[in-house]
């Protein structure tokens, strides 16, 4: 039996009748057509499906869709500002932190959640916080460097 879901995704109020056994990632991709959020393992082990829910990075592949009830959800599609990429996205591009790109939306959302809470992370904190993201192209060093650059840039911009 379907249940009524009320939620906010990328600032947009959403109301839908959903199958409560559905996972949140399937709702985002199949119902809202927000396919920027990727499905990798669908077991909570690769981080590709990471989104931000109520300010916290979570794995949308292992969350029942009803966990989104009255929540504020941000996906990779909601990150740009008036068509301009977020500084984290720009630093990932500049730093060569994107190879095949499959892990990238999850990593960028994980990075945003980290930097929103901790604008000046150490490299060790970056590694620990993003440890749940697997990049099979194994470009971890460039990812770490890009996160540090993005943090630096966001700090500078907040002082402007």
């Amino acid at each position, binding site marked *: 039996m379907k249940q009524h879901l009320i939620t906010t995704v990328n600032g947009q109020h959403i109301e839908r009748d959903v199958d409560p056994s559905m996972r949140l990632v399937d709702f985002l991709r199949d119902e809202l057509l927000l396919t920027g959020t990727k499905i990798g393992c669908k077991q909570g*082990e690769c981080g590709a499906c990471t989104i931000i829910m109520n300010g916290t990075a979570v794995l949308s592949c292992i*969350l*029942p869709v009803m966990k989104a*009830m009255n929540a504020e959800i941000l996906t990779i599609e909601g990150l740009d500002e008036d068509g301009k990429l977020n500084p984290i996205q720009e630093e990932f591009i500049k730093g060569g932190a994107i190879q095949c790109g499959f892990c990238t939306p999850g990593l960028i959302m994980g990075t945003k959640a980290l930097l929103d809470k901790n604008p000046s992370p150490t490299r060790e904190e970056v590694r620990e916080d993003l*440890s749940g993201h697997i990049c099979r192209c194994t470009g971890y060093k460039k990812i770490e460097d890009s996160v540090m650059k993005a943090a630096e840039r966001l700090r500078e911009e907040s002082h402007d």
Partner: protein
Amino acid sequence: MNYVIAESTAEVIEVLKKANGLACIVAGGTDLVLDIDTGKKSAGTLVDIMRIPELKKIELVDGFLEIGSAATLTEIHSHPLVKQYFPSLAKGCRTVGSRLIQNVATLAGNVITAQPAADAGMSLSVLDPQFVLVDEGGTRICGVDGMYAGFGVSEVDSCKTLLTKIRIRIPNEHEAASFQRLELRKSLSLPMLNVAAMGSISGGHFDWVRLRMAPVGKGPVRAVQAEEWLAGQPVTPETFSHAGELALADAKPRSNPLRGSKEYRELTLPVMVERALLDIAIQLNALEG
């Protein structure tokens, strides 16, 4: 399936009672969702407890730290009271899965899923926790050994009973605890072995030690022989080493193709015990010489 977002403990018990075994509690859901998917578990109704305000609390009450069953592992290991009084528990909680798992999974869930080497439950096990359980019949308190029925099987039936909070006595100045983990990689990986210990030291001797290890049996296994011998022993490297050997008497490790052979685990377990006891001695500034 039906999904209920509960607003109070009373509502949880009411829904469970009405469903007569067909409804099941879900907290973080990081294991349960996958178990339902693979058919290991089933539920006509899931009762989500994560928005019940009283279950989110982490607070000091009458000399005990009380951790609500809906507090996430991240909320626990980043909490100032946990970091101050129970650094070994903070370490155990921040070792589970990855930060993304810790952001939704709970300490209560880590105990209820009853996986023997679950890091958060293991680090908790030596702190003499009291588990506050509520069901149709009322409230009762259970200790660690009343929580684990077998490998991945809890004594607590989440279709009938709600774990509301975990109470841990604040340690005095003679007491400290340690959590040690042997691992292939630091995240997204179950440990090859983990060991937790808590002890009291005065006058250069152990007053008592609680020592548990996993995965070497059902749940966090007590190293009974080592515990009994350690009481009254001097705080020296020789003591740590002998206790490590004694711990083997209560351990029955199995071979696992991913996480080490029985023989490797038997060789490394004493080292993990030594490290845990050394860590306690260092924390209490009690190492002789």
